[in-house]
């Protein structure tokens, strides 16, 4: 019946498979994958392989790479797309928006009045002892109230197929460029399959990002100059920096292109020094300003923080955001959502034990051999101990470390990530994936790009989907709901409609009345917002205003 043998011997199946519902009783293909299933079977083995090769070559010639230890490597893109149904996506979309709003409110509170400490939601030490807490930005109100302009929330699907949050990235999340290049490459490789679906576009990302960055410009700047700040060509995400700068039509600057004078940031051009208003930086906090942080940083611009504090330049994402995506703080995010938004979390966390708390510690110490232990400060998999894979000696050592400093650890169950069919040497086989949707906060609305980066672990059974561990990626197709009008923001060419001035998503608490930060914020921020609306004279088509303003994002919930 089928002309391809690549799906034969599909397995072994561990966890939730997104394409096949019941592999045991025969391959029962889920609805959203029916068309892809048909197309691949019709294509046949050779054709699939030929197209996969063409895909790989086109990526090499375009230089779609990431850097590992200074070497450029291609980032493999799998030929089988990942499909997410409209209803599932809506859940993710709302969940991510909710999370970002809560984290924005949290950051405004931490660097502002600190009411959450008084209310006992999160212990003060948990926040201020974080290495990412920077007192230097305390009291610094961002121009339009936004600190998390761009975020990437890492999601996985558990054994029942439910999306859960693995971690939040609100500092400098990367990977969105692959979302855009993957789409372009895959639509060239599988045009007929593509045409049979209604897939929500992703190329509008740059435009939405640019709008958000312009909206974040300091008060009184009518035509802000936005730049992307990169550490340079040897950075692993350099490809992405160039892509974003190119598609936004802004300059990609390195630290040596910038200079601070009189509390302003200027860039060196062939016509002399020109002012910069918004810096979308892709450099970590600690390297941004050698005058404030690490004096040995050559990636930074001395005086940048002074300029930001003077309100002459907006740094995006804001400095000090790292307190919000800390592993320990992660365990409090559901509480933050309830505290700030008076809502129940839409997306669940992965179950996590805080070892700083005695009863939780007891339970974990009993079950060390079946859990994953993560150091709170470690990043990128550093110091993680996977219980089932560890030796007795390692576990004893770990036990000692936990007793010595219990607050430095969290524990999670071993999570089985969902699988998606992936072309490997033996054929098409299940491989574990995660998902990083990207969200852009322009101040009045959090826009979640329909798609996001699906990373896939190519070795069999591998659960870590990191690109430095031989990971690849997949194009992620979010299907459009046929009964809902398309989101006008998805349209690549549609300009922003003129909208009535409305309240921004302002951090604030739902339980008590108007907080101090809120009333102050709105006073000082009212002007610049109005200013902003005037800066987009070209966005004057009123026709689109209805549909997305009445969308599922009433921004008034803060009041």
């Amino acid at each position: 019946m089928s002309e391809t043998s690549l799906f034969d011997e599909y397995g072994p199946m561990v966890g939730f498979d997104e394409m096949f519902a019941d592999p045991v009783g025969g391959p029962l293909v889920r609805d959203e994958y029916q068309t892809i299933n048909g197309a691949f079977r019709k294509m046949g083995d050779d054709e699939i392989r030929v197209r996969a090769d063409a895909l790989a070559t086109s990526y090499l010639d375009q230089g779609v790479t990431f850097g590992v230890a200074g070497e450029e490597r291609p980032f493999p893109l799998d030929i089988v797309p990942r499909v997410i149904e409209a209803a599932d996506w809506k859940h993710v979309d709302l969940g991510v928006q909710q999370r970002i709003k809560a984290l924005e409110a949290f950051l405004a509170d931490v660097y502002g009045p600190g009411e959450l400490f008084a209310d006992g939601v999160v212990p003060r030490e948990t926040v201020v002892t974080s290495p990412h807490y920077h007192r230097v930005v305390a009291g610094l109100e961002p121009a339009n109230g936004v600190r998390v302009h761009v975020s990437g929330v890492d999601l996985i699907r558990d054994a029942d197929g439910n999306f859960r949050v693995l971690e939040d990235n609100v500092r400098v999340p990367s990977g969105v460029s692959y979302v855009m290049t993957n789409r372009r490459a895959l639509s060239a490789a599988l045009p007929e399959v593509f045409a049979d679906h209604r897939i929500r576009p992703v190329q509008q990302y740059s435009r939405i990002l640019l709008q958000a960055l312009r909206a974040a410009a300091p008060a009184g700047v009518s035509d802000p100059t936005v730049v992307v700040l990169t550490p340079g060509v040897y950075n692993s995400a350099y490809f992405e920096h160039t892509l974003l700068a190119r598609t936004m039509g802004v300059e990609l600057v390195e630290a040596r292109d910038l200079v601070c004078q009189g509390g302003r940031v200027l860039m060196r051009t062939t016509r002399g020094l020109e002012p910069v208003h918004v810096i979308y930086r892709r450099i970590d906090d600690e390297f941004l300003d050698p005058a404030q942080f690490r004096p040995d940083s050559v990636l930074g611009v001395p005086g940048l923080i002074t300029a930001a504090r003077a309100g002459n330049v907006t740094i995006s994402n804001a400095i000090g955001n790292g307190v919000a995506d800390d592993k320990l703080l992660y365990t409090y995010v559901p509480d933050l959502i309830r505290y700030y938004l008076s809502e129940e979390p839409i997306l669940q966390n992965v179950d996590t034990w805080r070892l700083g708390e005695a009863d939780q510690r007891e339970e974990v110490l009993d079950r060390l051999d079946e859990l994953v232990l993560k150091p709170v400060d470690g990043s990128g998999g550093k110091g993680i101990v996977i219980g089932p894979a560890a030796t007795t000696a390692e576990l004893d050592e770990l036990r000692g470390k936990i007793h010595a400093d219990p607050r430095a650890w969290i524990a999670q169950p071993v999570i089985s990530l969902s699988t998606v069919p992936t072309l490997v040497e033996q054929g098409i086989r299940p491989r574990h994936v995660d998902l990083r949707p990207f969200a852009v906060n322009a101040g009045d609305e959090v826009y979640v790009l329909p798609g996001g980066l699906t990373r896939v672990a190519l070795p069999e059974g591998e659960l870590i989907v990191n690109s430095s561990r031989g990971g690849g990626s997949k194009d992620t197709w979010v299907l459009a709901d046929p009964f809902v009008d398309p989101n006008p923001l998805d349209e690549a060419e549609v300009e922003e409609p003129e909208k009535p001035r409305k309240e921004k998503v302002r951090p604030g608490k739902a339980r008590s009345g108007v907080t101090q930060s809120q009333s102050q914020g709105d006073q000082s921020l009212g002007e610049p917002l109005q200013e902003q609306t005037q800066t987009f004279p070209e966005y004057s088509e009123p026709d689109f205003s209805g549909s997305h303003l009445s969308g599922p994002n009433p921004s008034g919930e803060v009041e």
Partner: protein
Amino acid sequence: MLSRIAESLFWIGRYLERADDTARILDVELQVLVEDPTIDEEHSCRQLLTVMGVEEYPSVVNRWTILDLLAHNPESPSSIAYVIDAARENARGARETLSTDMWAAINTMWRGLPSARAMRSADMFGWVRNRTAMIAGIADSTMTRDEGWQFFMLGRSIERVDMTARLLSTASLAAEAQLAWPTTLRACGAYEAFIRAYRGLEADRLAAEFLLLDRWFPRSVVSALVEAEKALATLEAGGQRTGGQRSGFSDEGLRLLGRARTELEYRPLAEIVYDLPTEMERLQRSCAAASEAVTTRYFSLAESRQWSEGALL
């Protein structure tokens, strides 16, 4: 435009032209070594190295040495391999300003280098010429004529003047070899154009004149100088808010190039050809000085790092 990006584009232009010209020069040189039985290989190769800027090479020099030093050896700054790598490195740093096509073309060339080096030399040189021509074509049809384009053209033209000058000195130094001038013309891709222009009256003096002064042939020194001046004048005009210059030229680079060109154009040819190598060396020095002037005026902002200034505020 950022000074750093402008500088990258300038050097991409230079490196690509250098790769092209080096391939042409080597191609012809190797052919001559094969075809001319009377030639002194050691002497001729050494001369080529000197002209190409490789100082004092200690051991024996033969065709394999020049192939290594000028084509294959990625460590040798005069080699094609080195130059392609440098062009690509610059393009990587300026990637967001290049058109996608342009970047892909440069990147593809760089990726093809290892396999090109495994080819027979003549094929490799052909490959280099084709690739650089393709990149030039793509640049021509996809780059907007903004400052970036002017810097790219400026780099390319200055390099072309410089390389043609080197080529002319090689030819005049090897004047006793009967094949020198036809060879030089062929290296510039000018042989047919020359024959047609002078109706087959081949003579050293005429060939030199053609390569130096022909206004119609795009690889001649004067044509390239005119191109470079055009680019500089456009940049100058773009930068100036007030009306045109009343007298003289305020831009040092423009002045240097203009003087070099007029010296070639308005002096008697015999005077120039009398001691061509010295003349050509002067021309190269003018190019270097002009390049220096452009750097000072447009790029040097990128170099200096002012640490204290902002930090003290």
